[in-house]
Each structure stands twice: as C-alpha cells, then as structure tokens.
C-alpha cells in the first residue's frame, strides 16, 4: 500500500517538475481521440482524408486545447495550495498553545544556528575582501623536534629577497612589517600602527583606494618623495573622515610625508592605521643605530595549478640554502610549512567555531525532534479528522501535503523570529569574540549567504520534523479510528509510541552530549582561572611608551626620559608604586642563550630576559625567594646584577646556591645598543611568574636593570589605590611634561590585558556552549513533559481499569514515572557513549581537564535524570488522581 502512494507522490512530483512530460501525455491523449474518431468516420463510409478532416474539425484547435488544459493544471494546483495554506493557518490558530511552543522551539534552533553560521561565514569562509585571498600563503619555519610549536613566519630583509627571487611557486610575493608611527596631534603625540609595505603590496591585495590612489612602483624607490596611505578606521578616528586631506603633508616619525590615498573600510592588512612604502635592501645596517631592523612577515600568492605540497618542496630548497648562510635563524632540523593566510590568522579559533557549529547543529536537531514529537502527538489526536477526510476522498498525498504545509508555516514563522533573534544575539556574540583572533578585515553581519542559510534551515527543518508524522498520519488505516470510540489503547498505537520514545531518547542523548561539552569547557575554564599567575594584577595601570627613535638610541637617552618620569608619577595622587619594564606578564621578554661561570654544557641553554626598574617586583607583588632584589642605586648605575626565577635556579643551578654566581646573557651583545661583556652577578631569586602565557610551563627568566641598554620597547606599570583607569589622564600629562614627543599606547588595566590575552578565547567557547546546552535542556524538558503527559492522557482509560481492578495510587505513579525514566535512562546511556566518542574533538580545547572527566559526566547524567523526573511529576500527579469511575467514562 505504501508503495502505491509513494509511486503517486512520485508521479505528482514528476508532473510538476517535468511539464514536457505532461504535454506529451496530453498529445498522446488527443492523438488517441482523433484516431478513434477517424476509425468511426471510416466505418461510416468516409474516405481517409475526409475522415481525418472531419475528426479534426469536430475536436477543434489542438493548440488551443493544449493551452487551456495547461492553464487548468496551473490554476488548480495554485488553488489547492492556497486552500492547504488557509486550512493549515486556521488549524494552527485553533491551537494557540501548541503553535506558540512550536514556533518558539524552532526560533531558538534556527536563531542560534543562523547566528553561529554568520560568525563562521564571515570569519572562516570569507574573512578577507581581497580577490584570490584563498591562495594567499605564508611560509613558516618549524623546529622538526617540536613541530606543533608556533613557527617563524617573519624574515630579515635579505632572507625575504632570496625567497622572492628564488621561488618558482608564487606569482607575487610581498611582505609587511610593523612600526610605531608617532604623529603630532594638538598638544601631544599620538601613536598610529604603521605597516611598512614592500613593492607590489597594493597590486597583491587588489583593492582600489577609496579616495586618492594606491602605491605605484615609483613610490617605493628610496629617492621618491615620502608618501603614505591611510587605513579607513584611522582616517575616521584621527582625521575626522575628511576626504579633502588627500595631498596634504604630515610629519610621521619626524619625516614629512604626503598622504596619497585612503583605503576602503575592509582593507585592513596587518590591522594597519598607516601604510608606508619601503623597498627592502640586502644591507641590514641601513637602519639607525638604536633600532632593531624590521622583521618582514612574508605572504605569497600561489600560482594557479601549484599545490601546497609543491610549494612546500620548492621553498624547502631555498630555506636549506639560507640556513647555511644564517645558521642562527634556522633550527638544526627544521620543516617548512605553507599555511594559508586564513588559517594563519584564524588558526586556533577555527576549532572553537567548528565546535560551536557542532553544538548548534545538535541544538537544531533537538528542536526538530521536539517538534516531530509535538506534531506526531497532534497528528494522533487528529486521526479521526484525517480518517474522515480520507473517507471523503482526500488522497493520502493531500493529507501529507496538508501536514507539511502546517510544518512549513511553523518553520517560516520560527525562522523569521529566529533571524530576528540571531540579529539581536549576534552583537553579543561579536562582543564575546576575543580580539586579534579574527582579522581586522572581517565584518560579522547577517549578509546574503547567511540569510540564504537561515532560509535553507527553515525549509529543511519541516522536512525533518514534519515528514515522519505526516507519513504516519497518512498511513493509518481508515476504519480503525472511526470505529474506535476511546482514545485508543489498541495495538495500532504501539508503533507510534515507540517512535515517540525513540525521538525522546535521541533528544536526551543529544542534550547529554551538549551538556557534557559545556560542562568540560566550564571545568577547563575554572581550572584556567585558578591557574596562579605568580603576581597580583589588580589595581595596576599599564601603558607602552614608544620613544621617537631619532632622539632615543642610547641607554643614557632612555634613562634621561624614564628616571624623571618615574619620580613624577610616583608622587601623583592615587598612585602607590610605579615601575619601568620591557615586558608585560604573562609574557616575558627577549629570548637569549645563557652561560654560567663554572658550568660546562654542550647544548644551548635558553632563557628569557626582561629589563626593568627596581620597583617592578613590588608593583606586581612578586615574592622574593632568596637573596634580594636589585636596588635603586644599582639601577641608577646600570650595575651588572640580575634576579632570576625559581625555574632558572632549579634548571641551571640544580641544587647549588645561585646567589653570587655569574651568568652571561649572550644576546645582549647583539642588541643595537649592545652591552659589552654581558656577564652578570645573581643577587636574588623570585617566585615563578607566568612568562609564556597561562597554558605553557614557565621558562627560566632573568631580570636586569633597565638602564643597561637603550634598545627594546618599554612601558610603565602603575599600582593605584583605586580604579587603575582613573590615573590615565594624569599619567599622560606627566609623560608629555617630560617629553611632548612620546605617545601612550595599549593603555589599560593589567587585569583587562590578562583577560583579553588569556581568558577571552576559552570564555567564548564555554559561554556559547553553555548557552546552547541550557536552551537544549529546556527543550528536552518540554519534550519529555509533552510526551509523558500525552502518553498519560492516552492511558487514562487503562489506568482507570487497573485501579478499578485494585491497583494502588503508587502503582499508577510508578507506571508514569517508569514511562518517563525508561526513555531518559536509555537516552543518557546513548549520550554517554556518544560523548565518549566525541571527546577527542574537544580534547584540544581543554586545559587540565580530562575529556572523560567523570565528575562532569556523572553530574550531567544526574542533572538529566532529575530534569526527567521533574518533567514527569505533573503527569504523574494527574495519573494518581484518576478516579476509576471517571476514567472509564473518559470519552
């Protein structure tokens, strides 16, 4: 029987989707008619030609008939569709409670998936506005012994030129480097993020200027008049968004440069504010004495037809040659990796987003399952209606279409509200996204592909939740519901209740998986928050102070700025302490090799070192473990004394007392403002402070007086009595009182800095996952409740009979609770297996938390069982209050 109407459905679909088939059938039909008529005419004695002529005349214009018939077909199907639609709308209006629950359920599912998809579309699929951006590749050098560690993607100018000239795989290769650009505004100095760009950069990205023009080859020549290009954001924030400033000259870093162009909004390569043309040359010494030479971040456009593997092979050859020339810059054994720019920029965030997408898909499935159950329950109560209509001649196809149209109305309403929810929720999601994890070019919004996605989901969901109930309703045989006077305890309902139970089992399993994911991420986040930084970050204001490189190159020049500044800030109201520093925890300073007098070792001994003033330890409340901190006089005299951390003492001095020992900080000799004979005496040991971020083990670290060298970026840390941000204006005044040419950058509270650096990423995944898990749980609660309540209502008759035959109220209670708990328990069991299987995906996102964390899994199981019992309570109470006499009369 099923086969026959499936065949019919197929014919209908074919008839509407293949009009030429319909036309051919009609032609055949008419041809048959004519043939019959001709036969009859011939039998009446006409000759062949006359018979054919008469037949045609009687039938009339065949083309006209074909036209009219086709018109009939189109009009009739539109008409019946409209009837289905109005009928469905009326049916839904009659049950406002059901309709509201259904629409809200769908809106949550569709809204959440649309919001997450728009993040994914804009971040992972189309992050860059540049044509051909999917073939932008960066080149990374990885240590073969530690292949998963972050590789090097920056190159010196000679290296970059070699890669450009010798490679056969990129049709265009450019590079950029960051530079602080100081620029005079009103009474003080502001800092812009400068991007040095190499020839062809603007050809490479292929976006025209919004105003003015982009760089041309001549602009990069050292002899060309100095020019620059403005980024959109800086143009709006620092130059009032005025296009007439093109052609004006500005003093940037002491050089007069002409503004030649303003880039459009989505051009944001390197998050640059200003773009300066530079032509790298092989002689690295071309840069001023006090400055480090720029490091070039290389990016190439893969030639058509060249694969990543081919590019890797080609560049490995060049890297091997370069490694012989610059042995310090390449590990002894290394691997060259070609990474797409999208992967490079989005990197680790991809996993978070993919996980979130998975979570949201689970949520959508739960919504659909819930809806399927609601629809099925509703279809069952409408069995009689369908049986009557079907007895009156409505075809099964009509009934199925009817139910599908109802589902479609629900999902379109749900979809519309869902898109509204998504638009509202998107801002909150974007606010949660940790900065710098997504490229500056990315704009997250509900765009066309996203709306298309939402539409597709809204069309797909009724197929998932509406089709099975529709097929079941249409399949039910005609007479039984008509004969059956009660609500039915007959065998026919067993299959249906099985199906409903299966849906609930799936829902519980899906929700279990979601909850376990959220629970694990939460545990991981709590563990991360509990991780000790080794310092007190509260009440600390931080700012980085890039100094104009023409006037600050030597240690004496640098000290001449900082010494009076520290004194002035110390005496400000609300300031309790202040320090100078070259690094900001939880990241620690410059890498170096070290040597220790009296220790012989073959391998390199790496460490990090940081330049700071004597108050650094007290500002961050870092504990002294042994010896002493260096003091004010030692800093003032730039004495060669150092403080080391416990990890250093443990790793390189073993159990010996490090105080008084001498160590060599080798890389200080390579600084532009170098320290000759960099041997230092250890005066103290402090407790470990995180210096490779929160999730990496602490590295050996050295602190030395900041007055030793003029090289390296510096900033200040201010401990305050009250809100750290309250001192910002007075600190800025003091900075400009000492030197008007210095700008404050990256100002903020240390707590906020640490939050953005270390907590924002994990928090994003955990908050979203938790949100979805809670919504999912709410949906499952509704689902379990509706199924148990419905089943109880259908079994009122049966329970009444049981009670009349002597069953007690507690028997009835057990019956109902048993119904609910059985499906939940099965769902939990399946969910357990599923989440164990899926835990591998989550593992990379977890910190000090096992993906099989028993506490989380056990807790989630208890939670779901408790929710299940709660959902059964109301129906169970209803069952126990059944009066046998009433129940037996019950319809």
């Amino acid at each position, binding site marked *: 029987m099923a086969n026959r109407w499936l065949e019919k459905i197929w014919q209908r679909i074919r008839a509407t989707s293949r009009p030429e088939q319909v036309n051919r059938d009609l032609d055949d039909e008419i041809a*048959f008619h004519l043939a*019959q008529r001709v036969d009859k005419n011939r039998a009446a004695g006409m000759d062949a030609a006359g018979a054919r002529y008469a037949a045609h005349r009687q039938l009339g214009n065949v083309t006209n008939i074909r036209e009219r*018939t086709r018109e*009939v077909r189109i009009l009739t199907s539109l008409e019946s569709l409209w009837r289905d639609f109005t009928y469905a709308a009326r049916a839904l209006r009659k049950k406002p409670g059901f309709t509201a629950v259904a629409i809200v359920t769908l809106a949550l599912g569709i809204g959440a998936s649309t919001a997450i998809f728009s993040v994914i579309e804009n971040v992972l699929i189309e992050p860059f506005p540049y044509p051909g951006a999917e073939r932008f590749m960066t080149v990374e050098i990885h240590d073969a012994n530690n292949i998963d560690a972050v590789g090097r993607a920056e190159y010196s100018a000679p290296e970059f030129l070699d890669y450009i000239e010798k490679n056969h795989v990129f049709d265009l290769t450019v590079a950029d480097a960051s530079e602080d650009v100081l620029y005079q505004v009103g009474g003080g100095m502001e800092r812009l993020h400068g991007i040095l760009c190499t020839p062809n950069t603007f050809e490479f990205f292929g976006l025209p200027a919004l105003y003015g023009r982009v760089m041309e080859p001549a602009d990069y020549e050292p002899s060309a008049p100095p020019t620059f290009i403005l980024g959109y954001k800086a143009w709006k924030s620092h130059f009032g968004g005025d296009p007439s400033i093109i052609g004006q000259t500005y003093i940037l870093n002491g050089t007069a440069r002409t503004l030649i162009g303003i880039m459009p909004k989505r051009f944001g390569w390197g998050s640059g504010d200003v773009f300066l043309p530079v032509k790298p040359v092989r002689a690295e010494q071309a840069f001023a004495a006090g400055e480090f030479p720029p490091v070039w971040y290389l990016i190439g456009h893969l030639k058509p037809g060249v694969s990543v593997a081919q590019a890797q092979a080609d560049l490995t050859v060049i890297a091997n040659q370069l490694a012989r020339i610059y042995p310090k810059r390449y590990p002894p054994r290394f691997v060259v990796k070609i990474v797409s720019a999208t992967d490079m920029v989005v990197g680790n965030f991809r996993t978070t987003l993919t996980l979130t997408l998975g979570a949201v898909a689970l949520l959508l499935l739960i919504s659909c399952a819930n809806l399927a159950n609601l629809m099925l329950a509703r279809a069952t109560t409408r069995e009689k209606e369908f049986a009557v209509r079907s007895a009156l001649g409505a075809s099964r196809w009509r009934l199925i279409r009817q139910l599908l149209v109802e589902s479609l109305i629900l999902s379109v309403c749900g979809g519309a509200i869902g898109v509204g929810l998504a638009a509202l929720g998107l801002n909150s999601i974007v606010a949660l996204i940790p900065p710098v994890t997504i490229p500056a070019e990315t704009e997250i919004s509900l765009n066309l592909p996203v709306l298309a996605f939402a539409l597709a989901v809204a069309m797909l969901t009724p197929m998932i939740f509406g089709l099975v109930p529709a097929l079941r309703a249409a399949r039910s045989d005609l007479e039984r519901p008509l004969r059956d006077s009660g609500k039915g305890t007959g065998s026919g309902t067993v299959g249906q209740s099985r199906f409903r139970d299966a849906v609930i089992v799936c829902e519980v399993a899906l929700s279990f998986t979601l909850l376990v994911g959220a629970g694990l991420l939460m545990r991981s986040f709590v563990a991360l928050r509990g991780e000790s930084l080794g310092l007190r970050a509260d009440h600390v204001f931080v700012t980085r102070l890039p100094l104009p490189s023409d006037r600050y190159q030597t240690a004496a020049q640098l000290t001449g700025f900082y010494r009076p500044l520290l004194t002035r800030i110390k005496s400000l109201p609300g300031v309790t302490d202040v320090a100078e520093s070259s690094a900001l925890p939880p990241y620690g300073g410059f890498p170096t090799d070290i040597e220790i007098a009296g220790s012989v070792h073959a391998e390199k001994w790496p460490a990090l070192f940081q330049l700071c003033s004597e108050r650094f330890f007290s500002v961050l409340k870092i504990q002294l473990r042994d010896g002493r901190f260096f003091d004010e006089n030692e800093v003032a005299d730039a004495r060669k004394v150092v403080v080391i951390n416990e990890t250093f003492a443990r790793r390189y001095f073993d159990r010996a007392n490090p105080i008084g020992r001498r160590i060599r900080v080798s890389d200080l000799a390579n600084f532009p403002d170098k320290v000759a004979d960099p041997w230092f005496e250890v005066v103290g040991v402090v407790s470990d402070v995180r210096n490779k971020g929160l999730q990496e083990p602490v590295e050996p670290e050295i602190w030395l007086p900041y007055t030793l060298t003029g090289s390296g970026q510096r900033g200040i840390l201010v401990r305050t009595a009250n809100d750290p941000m309250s001192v910002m204006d007075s600190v800025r005044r003091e900075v400009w009182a000492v030197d008007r040419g210095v700008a404050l950058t990256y100002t903020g509270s240390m707590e906020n800095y640490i939050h953005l650096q270390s907590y924002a990423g994990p928090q994003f995944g955990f908050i979203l996952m938790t949100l979805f898990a809670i919504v999912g749980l709410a949906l499952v609660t509704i689902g379990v409740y509706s199924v148990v309540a419905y089943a109880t209502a259908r079994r009122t008759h049966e329970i009444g009979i049981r009670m009349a035959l002597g069953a007690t109220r507690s028997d009835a209670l057990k019956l109902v609770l048993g119904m609910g708990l059985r499906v939940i328990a099965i769902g939990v069991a399946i969910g357990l297996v599923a989440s164990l299987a899926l835990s591998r995906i989550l593992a990379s996102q977890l910190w000090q938390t096992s993906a099989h964390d028993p506490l989380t899994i056990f807790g989630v199981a208890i939670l779901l069982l408790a929710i299940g019992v709660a959902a059964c309570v109301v129906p169970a109470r209803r069952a126990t209050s059944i009066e046998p006499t009433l129940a037996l009369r019950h319809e």
Partner: protein
Amino acid sequence: MPDKKDDLLQGTLDLLILKSLARGPMHGYGVAEWIHESSQDVLRVEEGALYPALHRLELRGLLSAEWGVSDNNRRAKFYALTATGKKHLMQEAEYWRRMSGAIARVLQTA
C-alpha cells in the same frame, strides 16, 4: 475570466462527465461518445472543452487517471471516479434534479 454562461456550461459538463464515469473507467473519447449517445444524440459535447475539464476534475481529486489499453489495442488514458468524485456526483445530480424540477414547474404554470 469565464462569464456566467460558461460557468453553467462548465458545471453541466462536469456533471455529465462524472455521470458517464459512474459506469466504470473510460477514456476521453468514450466519455464524449457516451454523452452523445445516451442523450439520444441531443447533447453533443464540445470536444475542445472536454480535455481541460477532465484534467481539472483529475487535479481536484474527483477523478483518477491511469494509462491503459483500449478495446482496439491503442494506448489510452482511462479516467475513473474517486470516492470524492462519487460523492460530488451524488450532490450535483441531486441539485440538478431539484433545479430542473423547479424550472419545469415554473414553466408549467400558465
């Protein structure tokens, strides 16, 4: 848009088609011939209107259609009444009897 006269004709044609199929499945040509013969040659179906009407009734679910083979071994599309079609025929025939009876009574009154 069809005018009122067409509506009446169409309704009448539908009724005649349904009635002709009450005897069993038949192809379009057979329907036209049966109406012609059983009205003792009075009613001649306008054959150009027959096929749009058959298709309309099929789409409305009053008729079902299947391809089969005719008496003289030709491929032909056979139409049959559905349950809805039968019910519709009963209602329409009853209506028609009442109407024609009423009209006849009106015409008889002098």
